[in-house]
């Protein structure tokens, strides 16, 4: 199980690099699908079965299809590089390294790799997650339905001919 995690982690990081470095949005979208699918398998390894399937169906399926559709619709070509963000170019990489170093330091200080014992495997199948969702989180769950309704109405209004 552990080797598979590291293989998937390497794949996800490489694909994420490709998302950031590609100049053509369509290639970025395809790389993002690779990231999402490898993360779905990582979820499976961590016992989150339901979320792994939801990740593939909703993220890699529905959301990315929407992205690819918009890229196609707007005919998004290669972006033209500009030198306007000179500050970002010079300060970006050092700040990213500092940020990551800070997080790694905090994580290794707080959760050293060898000392935290894992809890017994708790499989998050549809039944377990569903029971929790409808017992402890009913109100947020119902509120998300209103959120989605408003979001769909908003999307229709925004994308209409005359705004």
């Amino acid at each position, binding site marked *: 199980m*552990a080797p598979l995690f590291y293989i998937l982690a390497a794949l996800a*990081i490489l694909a994420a690099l490709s998302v950031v470095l590609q100049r053509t949005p369509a290639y970025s979208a395809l790389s993002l699908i690779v990231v999402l699918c490898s993360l779905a398998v990582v979820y499976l390894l961590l016992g989150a079965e339901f*979320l792994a399937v939801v990740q593939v169906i909703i993220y890699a399926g529905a*959301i990315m299809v*929407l992205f690819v559709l918009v890229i196609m619709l707007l005919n998004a070509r290669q972006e033209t590089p500009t030198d306007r963000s000179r500050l970002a170019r010079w300060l970006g990489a050092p700040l990213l390294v500092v940020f990551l170093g800070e997080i790694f330091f905090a*994580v290794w200080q707080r959760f*050293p790799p060898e000392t935290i014992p894992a*809890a017994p495997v708790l499989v998050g199948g549809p039944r377990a997650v569903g029971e929790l*969702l409808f017992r402890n989180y009913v109100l947020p769950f119902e509120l998300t339905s209103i*959120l989605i309704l408003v979001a769909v109405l908003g999307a229709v209004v925004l994308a209409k001919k005359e705004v």
Partner: protein
Amino acid sequence: MVPLAHILALSAILFGLGAAGFIVRRNIITIFMCIELMLNAVNLAFIGFSRYLGNLDGQVFVFFVIVVAAAEAAVGLAVIIAVYRNRGSLSIDDLDSMKL
């Protein structure tokens, strides 16, 4: 068994890459995809903690994050379409009319 620190490290790397792309990229669709990358990094941290604490509440949180991400993608892409219709451009350098 994978140590929790390594899961959190992967999450941090993905989040950092997403944040870097958010700042560096000029295309508004790519910027949007970098936001999705950051959301996924946070989801991974939630699931890692859920596994190590033996508590399924984290997975319910991830479920809500995915639902909100779906709503956000629908609205965000509609906004991008409206912007493209009004400006005829996808580069954020052309969207500076509110700059002082």
